[in-house]
């Protein structure tokens, strides 16, 4: 099937098999492997993207469902070669180790700050509870979100 969608502001078109997830289409059809595939069953958040400005697990969305819609992935957060403040904060605070969870966290944290400019610690924990990280123990991820919020 043919799908047309906007990804990171650019129009894209791809030939997909109807069972393919949006995550698979992004990674394998559109050359955007930044969104990650840690579970492909909606449990880890590593595949987080914005679909029409709503945070979703792209592994749970079929590629054909995204037909005609607007998608923002981790690759679309930086503008004009400048990191998004959340990306910058993750790099600065040591919130990145293996980094496999990072794209999902960065997208989810950017979405949080979009809706809540000054989240409390509990709000940060709750907002990011759908994203798993196996390396950091989350402490420096919280630092990163607080730092980004303060800027």
């Amino acid at each position, binding site marked *: 099937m043919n799908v047309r969608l906007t990804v990171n502001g650019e129009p894209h078109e791809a030939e997909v098999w109807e069972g393919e997830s949006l995550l698979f289409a992004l990674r394998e059809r559109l050359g955007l492997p930044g969104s990650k595939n840690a579970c492909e069953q909606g449990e880890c958040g590593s595949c987080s993207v914005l679909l029409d400005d709503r945070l979703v697990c792209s592994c749970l969305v079929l590629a054909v469902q995204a037909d005609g819609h607007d998608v923002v992935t981790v690759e679309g957060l930086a503008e004009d070669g400048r990191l998004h403040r959340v990306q910058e904060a993750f790099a600065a605070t*040591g919130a990145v180790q293996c980094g496999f969870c*990072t794209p999902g966290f960065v997208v989810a944290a950017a979405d949080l700050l979009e809706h809540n400019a000054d989240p409390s610690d509990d709000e940060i924990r709750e907002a990011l509870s759908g994203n798993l990280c196996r390396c950091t123990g989350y402490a420096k991820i919280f630092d990163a979100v607080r730092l980004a919020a303060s800027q």
Partner: protein
Amino acid sequence: MTVPAEKLRLGRVGESARRTDAVPKVTGEFAYSSDAYAAGMLWGRTVRSPHAHARIRSIDVSEALAMPGVHAVLTHEDVPGEKRYGLEFRDQPVLAFDRVRYFGEPVVVVAAEHPEQARRAADRVRIEYEPLEPIVDPERATEQEPLHPDRPTMGHGYRDDPRPNVVRSLVIRRGDPDARGDVSVSGVYELGIQDQAFLGPESGLAVPDGEGGVDVYVATQWLHVDRDQVAPCLGLRPEQVRIHLAGVGGAFGGREDLSMQIHGALLALHTNRPVKIVYDRQESFVGHIHRHPAKIWAEHRATRDGKLVCIRVRILLDGGAYASSSTAVTSNAASFACGPYAVENALVESTCVYTNNPPCGAMRGFGAVQSCFAHEAQMDKLAAALRIDPIELRLRNALAPGDSLPTGQRITGTLPVADVIRRCAELPVPEAEELPRDPIRLPGGAGNTTRGEGVRRGVGFAVGFKNIGYSEGFDDYCTARVRLLADGSAEVHCAAAEVGQGVANVILQTARTELDTDDLVLAPATTSSVGSAGSASASRMTWMAAGAVREACRAALAERERTGGEVDVERVYRHPRTTPFDPETGQVTGERAHVAYACAAMRVVAEVDVELGLTRVVWIGTAQDVGRAVNPQAVEGQIEGGTAQGLGLALMEEVQTRGGLITNASFTDYLVPTTLDMPPVESVLVEDPEPDAPYGVKGVGEPPTVVSTAAILSALRDATGRELTRVPVSFDEVVGLD
């Protein structure tokens, strides 16, 4: 909204320099093994055993081969070289023949144009099995039919244990194991199977080179040992197999053993096309080894004033179907069974058995986690029996340099046990938070299960230690190569696996320090441009990589001094030699069986809803012996992350099996700690430079995992007054329903 990227700070040894891979990782540009791509590539899929133990009667691939898009369906008959491989002992079939010995064992591999075509073809492979009685109870395994009648682990200098299904047994005898004290406490402790649960699934890309050889891009922990296992199975010379490190999404021991390397290479050579294999999460749970589940019987005898007199411990580890690194885990569990305490008399017996349960091998903490859980529960019990403060009791027995371990090894390096205990105990414990409060800060969290009634607070403490580096006479080395170019820049080659722990920064910060320049690059890690670095395991990589890079840099500078031109030098660094244990007494046969040790102390505040069994860890404070921190921010990150993994084992993580079959192979059913489970972790880095190590460094990855399970359980016992002898703790045990 954007902010300008700060100018990169290129750090030296001892500085919290930003990770070299931080920016590509936050932008999504960093290429992981599962992102690998090559034009015309096929997708591989592995057909796995649905049985824990069965004879293979027949394999029919004809239907699968006829499916659309399918290019190859391979069985053990298509393995051109050695049919078996193994990290330490060659006991594991590349593709099963005759028998399968565990649930999920690979039997057939398929390659097709699309991953879905490969999956469907895999479903059409017809394998006829004759199910056999699985060995699933490790306590009975030594009386059952041997799973490996040829006993692959025997005759390697280990104690000769004639019982069937023994992978290794080790007995450590010290002093008079019958020595009596004024008091004695005993307990039996159990730990379930923990999974590494790295987020990046096993994956890689194998590319045929057109001349009979193959390049494999894979997430692994030790490139050269992968090559040395892959090449013989393909019937190739080592140099025809080049292993390149693709981005690694976490490892924690789970990538020491091979996953897709041989399978991908077989398919690639067979089809003459690049082949990519990516496991899904379910396959990942069966596709790698786990932390050994254990049962530990312990007795501690002490004088009335709290001096340990004698410790007796028996450890039983379930190694599952294949040896992996079980022999070393067995000896580690024994080495650390008595904890970081001085004791004159000890008897430690550690045995690992083969079963048809999931294979076990390396996971962060490697045998010491299991032992620490038991010895710290015992120390708390002893403190209670003696009415001595538990921290004071630990201080009275703390090991110190110059003391001897139950193996007879004298501690020659640093080991500030009393110091980490004191520094940790000094950390102020937060006041109990008032009620009412937001349910997110109560046990049960967003589940809104209590308003605070039935919630009890407990404070726990634990100390643990572990070896750094490979032990028992293993020739442990790391290679680095440095090129100084005419334009003044430098290039560093080292095959150390960056698995997320930050070794790339260790290498760069070392090279910048030694060469006193920022103008240098780290070449990609590969087997084709530099010798072996050894494994990113055993908390050894920082020490070993810093040692090798330092030596290579110094040699390069000396060479340039001499010749004045471009230089290209490779150097091999070895840590001080170790020797094996005496197979009969478990005593060291030379100066040391382990190179060095690192310790950590941890204090935990937890709240427990004693009616529902729900728990909440409120705060963790820890002091860790780090030798010298190459990058303090990264060290803290290791401590926080390692602590989280121990918290997972304490509270929620267990691979569950029934008749050897894994029943919870997903993140829906196997729970790992989330942002809502982790408390703040306050860490103190105790810097006491290790005399034998470059810059005095020690590995830091494992001690936090070793100690945190034990420390959390100590807090839960304090809150509930119950023994809580098994992890992960169950709600039933917490509330006292057995």
